[in-house]
């Protein structure tokens, strides 16, 4: 029990490092020529990476038998949500300066913003219901609700794909990893039903 707690703390500490580094670079003025853009890109990318990491837990358990990873799925998911919040805050507060009309317009008219906002909107109820109390209260419906993470991850990957200008390599790498992680689930069930 104590060991598990320690690992949780270590996990949070490790994945808080990128955020801390961004904070330090912001204060030191070493985020480059366009620090706001750098903040937006970095927080967004870490949100996506951590979302993929949390989605990797189940396949790792199923295919590799790494059951001990299971308790860290929530931690990774909440870390992803943290970066997603920072990402949204930078975009809404600094980029659009809480200009609600501009924000609404961006969400409605710019498909890549629509996709990104969808991803964020899906993560909110998941973060809220991530506690044990909510798990108990929702019972089986909790599992159904938390399938929203698939929508969130796909929307986030699409968001990245839609915002780049010409060089699709990086978002395609993330999309391919996500596709593999999503495909691993039905494939596992298929294999098990055949055995």
């Amino acid at each position, binding site marked *: 029990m104590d060991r598990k707690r320690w690992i949780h703390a270590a996990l949070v500490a490790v994945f808080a490092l990128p955020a801390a580094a961004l904070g330090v670079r912001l204060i030191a003025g070493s985020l*480059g020529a366009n620090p*706001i*853009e750098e903040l937006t890109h970095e927080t967004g990318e870490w949100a996506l990476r951590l979302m993929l990491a949390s989605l990797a837990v189940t396949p790792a358990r199923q295919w590799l038998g790494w059951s001990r990873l299971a308790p860290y799925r929530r931690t990774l998911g909440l870390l992803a949500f943290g970066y997603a919040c920072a990402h949204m805050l930078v975009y809404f507060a600094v980029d659009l300066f809480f200009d609600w009309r501009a924000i609404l317009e961006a969400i409605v008219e710019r*498909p890549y913003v629509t996709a990104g906002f969808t991803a964020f909107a899906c993560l909110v109820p998941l973060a809220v219901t991530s506690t044990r109390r909510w798990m108990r209260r929702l019972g089986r419906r909790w599992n159904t609700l938390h399938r929203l993470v698939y929508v969130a991850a796909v929307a986030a990957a699409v968001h990245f794909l839609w915002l780049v200008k*010409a*060089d699709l390599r990086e978002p395609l790498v993330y999309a391919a990893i996500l596709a593999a992680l999503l495909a691993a689930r039905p494939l596992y069930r298929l294999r098990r039903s055949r055995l």
Partner: protein
Amino acid sequence: MLIRVPRASEVRSREITDEELYLRRREFLRQSAAGAGALAGGLLLPGLGGAVEGAPAAGEAPGAVFPLSPFSTDEETTRYEHATTYNNFYEFGTDKEDPSRNAHRMRTRPWAVEVAGEVRRPGTLDLEDLLAPHAVEERIYRLRCVEAWSMVIPWLGIPLKDVLERLEPTPHARYVAFRTLHDPKQMPGQRRPILRWPYREGLRLDEAMHPLTLLATGMYGRDLPNQNGAPLRLVVPWKYGFKSIKSIVRIELTRRRPDTSWNISAPREYGFYSNVNPEVSHPRWSQRRERRIGDFFKRPTLMFNGYAEEVGSLYAGMDLARNY
């Protein structure tokens, strides 16, 4: 009363060179040389008058002073460090820092420019010969990228108009097409077909002949760094930055509208004109505001990037939402 008699070796205050003049000594020398050269050229070789003037030598002294064009803005210029490390030059990679890391591979001397198409004087010119007859001036322009950020750059260059007039376009010439160097050995980004290589851009002839349109050879008082399009680039300040093609090796006067790389890549997103226009959104993002590099918050984008008075008449009667 004490009378101080200066020693013979002592420098008298009136003999001390004014610091400002001292700092501009290279310019003084260059101007003297140019004057002498022009004089000698004029006497000995009448066809080459002023040939030395204005051709910026490699390793030009930083901060050299050139005549400042009245077209210049008095806005604060972007930090040199930012203007040279935050670049879109996909030939050297698609990250903003890639060009400053990779562009040193490009050899910019010697440099030849091919002049082709509807001109009376086609041929391949050495860069120095192309530029020699013209005087370099400094122009501080706003630069607005299609990605909604902007800078203020003090360019050194010559009006494209002066060069084109010397090349003598035929009456059939209606457009000017430009091409960037194509050499994947020097430009690693060209090994993958991210855009149609070589990078190509174009202007309508009247746009090219507009006095604001500049052929730049330097910035911030020195030669262009490679990542900024050395040794020769276009600067069209009222259009999105990608129209200002870098490292030019070919200038062709054409009858028909030339293809342009970004237009080939995404015709709905990047039109031939690509004039800065806050009212016409990029299909994926708004163009109403921009972040001036160095600023925290965004600022409103101006029609034609603030050059509406100068260039608005070029597009009189045109539907700018359709001709984006």
